[in-house]
């Protein structure tokens, strides 16, 4: 009935397993984000979803469309490269912001000009 019926059984099984594994990793990352107690611990778990979780689901998507259209469909790599490159940048910025915000304030109430490394 649906378009997945045209997939060979082996490809169908691989796609199903990859999709569920990727989604489970993303869920694990979000549960870690919810459960861990400090900010510096919490920043670690979401990266599971952004690297391996995204990679597995994109692999399943590439496999599905390549098999259905009988040609290599690899434009999903754009998302993978973009997210994998940008996530460390944003998280490092966030950690620097967190470190800056947790510094003690000066006597006049202004935030001490720390966090500037130059």
């Amino acid at each position: 009935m649906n378009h997945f019926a045209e997939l060979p059984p082996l490809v169908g099984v691989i796609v199903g397993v990859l999709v569920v594994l990727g989604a489970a990793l993303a869920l694990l990352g979000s549960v870690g984000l919810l459960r861990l107690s400090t900010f510096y611990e919490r920043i670690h778990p979401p990266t599971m979803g952004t690297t391996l979780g995204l990679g597995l689901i994109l692999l399943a998507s590439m496999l599905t469309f390549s098999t259905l259209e009988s040609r290599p469909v690899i434009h999903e790599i754009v998302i993978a490269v973009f997210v994998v490159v940008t996530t460390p940048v944003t998280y490092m910025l966030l950690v620097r912001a967190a470190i800056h915000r947790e510094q003690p304030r000066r006597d006049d109430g202004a935030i001490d000009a720390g966090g500037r490394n130059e």
Partner: protein
Amino acid sequence: MTGSFVVGALVVAQVLLALAMACALVRLLRGPRAQDRVLALDAMYVDAILLLLTFGMREATTVYFEAALVIGVLGFVSTAALAKFLLRGEVIE
């Protein structure tokens, strides 16, 4: 048979991703500090990208792929801008 297996797997994955977004949403609402909320927003948009990709696989269309790409780009820009704001108190100096 293969078709119903793949659709079932996609439905399970979508439920898991919706739960992941719900967890991130709870963290977004609870805080406790601004950087926790920004981190939760970042995790939420990555989960949204994954959810859109599974929708695209179910419908066999690339429209969702383009939406996922736009969310990825805008999510990076917004998280970077929010982190810059937390660091300096202004985005563009």
